[in-house]
């Protein structure tokens, strides 16, 4: 018996391995080839505009990048952007989820409307915000300010990073809402009822029943959003082009500047490698946190 089981397992192992092999190979190629090329380029002197200057550069690209004052401000901007958007979407998403869980007239329509910003392409929504919402002369916000006799705010020049955070948060709030709303729907009504009978008010129910129930879903939202928010690009490209100064240059945009405005493939690749390392550091912490949450 024992023998056959071992035998069977090996066959199964081999069989499943051979079945998985094409997919795994493809995935590895898909991942390793670009990664390998990025690593290779990051050690090369490779500027498209200077075909004469090429060859092994050692750590020069990394040194050039790490001594660049722009890199540190880009990292700071990236963290600020990710941090604030996460706070806004998670807090807002939770509150909205609780709101949309209540019975009210037209709830279905309201839900669809609340979720729809997520389906607008980032470039399009950034353009809409830039030209129709935040524009100091034609924007809705300027019009509103005028209505109350306040001076119009020139969002992208006086509050550049805040503006980007608002746009991105507006886009990702529906995502948080969507996940958290489905999670809240799985909350057992009996449990809430029991708490009520024990004398818990709505606030106590929210903090001691709903919120603990949403813990896992919130971790998932944070993780998924983090992955996407670390590489925010379109919104910045369309609205502020990383400026004024370096006020809205995040890591993704800095790499873009190096590669496509300076045509310095070497330094851009080094920036890419640094971004990968950073993302991995964040991911390790996050994955642990989420995994712990999901286990318990």
């Amino acid at each position: 018996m024992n023998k056959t089981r071992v035998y069977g397992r090996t066959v199964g192992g081999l069989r499943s391995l051979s079945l998985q092999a094409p997919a795994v190979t493809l995935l590895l190629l898909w991942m390793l080839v670009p990664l390998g090329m990025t690593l290779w380029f990051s050690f090369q002197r490779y500027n498209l505009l200077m075909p004469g200057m090429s060859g092994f550069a050692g750590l020069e690209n990394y040194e050039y990048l790490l001594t660049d004052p722009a890199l540190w401000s880009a990292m700071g901007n990236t963290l600020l952007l990710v941090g604030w958007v996460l706070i806004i979407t998670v807090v807002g998403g939770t509150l909205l989820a609780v709101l949309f869980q209540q019975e009210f007239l037209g709830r279905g329509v309201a839900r669809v409307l609340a979720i729809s910003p997520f389906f607008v392409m980032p470039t399009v929504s950034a353009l809409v915000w830039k030209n129709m919402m935040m524009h100091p002369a034609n924007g809705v916000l300027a019009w509103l300010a005028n209505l109350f006799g306040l001076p119009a705010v020139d969002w992208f020049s006086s509050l550049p990073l805040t503006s980007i955070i608002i746009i991105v948060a507006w886009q990702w709030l529906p995502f948080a809402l969507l996940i958290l709303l489905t999670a809240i729907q799985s909350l057992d009504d009996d449990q809430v009822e029991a708490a009520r009978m024990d004398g818990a008010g709505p606030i106590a129910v929210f903090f001691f029943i709903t919120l603990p129930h949403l813990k896992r879903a919130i971790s998932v939202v944070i993780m998924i959003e983090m992955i996407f928010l670390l590489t925010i690009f379109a919104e910045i490209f369309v609205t502020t082009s990383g400026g004024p100064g370096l006020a809205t240059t995040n890591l993704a945009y800095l790499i873009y500047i190096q590669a496509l405005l300076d045509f310095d493939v070497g330094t851009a690749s080094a920036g890419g490698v640094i971004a990968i390392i950073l993302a991995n550091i964040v991911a390790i912490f996050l994955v642990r946190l989420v995994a712990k949450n999901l286990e318990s």
Partner: protein
Amino acid sequence: MKLSRTLPVAGIAALGAGAANAETITVATVNNNDMVIMQSLTDAFEKAHPDITLDWVVLEENVLRQRMTTDIATKGGQFDVMTIGTYEVPIWAERDWLAPLNDLPEEYQVDDLLTSVRDGLSQDGTLHALPFYGESSMMYYRQDMFDQAGIEVPEQPTWEEVRDWASQLHNPGEETYGICLRGKPGWGENMALVSTMVNTFGGRWFDMQWNPQLDAAAWQEAVSFYVDLLNEYGPPGASSNGFNENLALFSRGNCAMWVDATSAAGKLYDTGESQVADKLGFAPAPIAETPKGSHWLWSWALAIPASSDSKAAAKEFITWATSQEYIELVGEQKGWTSVPPGTRESTYANENYQQAAPFAGFVLEAMQSADPTDSTLEPSPYVGVQFVGIPEFQSIGTQVGQMIAAALTGERTVEQALQAAQRSTKRTMQRAGYLD
């Protein structure tokens, strides 16, 4: 795109012996008004040259520049005709990326091209691109507002006077602003204007040893002047206004003055597009310490990359699109204010054009007096009025442009911005091997 180029067009191939296969050439160009007109005349070209079909790639300036540079540097061979400027031509020609354009046909009349433009597009005396349109910069103003305020504009205004007039005419309550200037960051946007201001305030980008001079007094003075002028008497949100935004503002009547490209004149005089066509005044670009480099020189030109495999057909096309015959065609079909300006002397000698465009002689004078080889008060090692003719300048100009924009929005002081700009420029120059 690539596939269709190598496939002969079946219909024409079927015409039989003797008839050459139609070659498709891919033309990359900017979405500026003059180029859009060129695209709309595709039929006229294809009718005259039945053996050539045109395939267009029309993009916004920055995107186009990226696509073309990547393509040409990696020898992609995607395009047969590229639209590039006076900045790129000498740099690309030096790297043998462009096909030299000697032995142009007799009827093309090379000598008719404006000398300053032709020099800008030549490397070692050989043309590497043909000018499609050219421009300098000048000052536009609202004649009606100036008359009302009793201001007379002298033959050569100064920046001090401009500030004075701007303060008199600034009326934000009625949405008329003293002056509109470029504020959008970019080496081809705000830095074009700021460089000319620095030139005329007596500054330069680099000294003869290629040391950046952005922390010099002249830069400080010019940039402070620019920032104060625009903050006090400019429209709100000036830091996101580029050429097109300012054109819209001025032609809607929101600005009393505007210093920008001469190529805007055609549009401003077009009664269909501009509300200020009948009350427009113009003057040379203002000066300060020195008249040197106070107005820029730029031309968009059509070039053939060395990697193209349809060079002959591409040459047919670019000689057509930059010819006198093309200019006349546009004049007849689209109106004489729409012809591509600043390339040929014959355009300016044309009576139709002179009649439709009262600014013609003025623009010609500005273009001829701009000298890219001598644009700074103190000597400089580079060629170019509003740019520095080295490959690193795209990066430098973009970075410095961002810093100037930060100074304009008040995110940094002018001094901080210029120091940061000086540092980053120095880094770039060190890395490129100009400095130790």
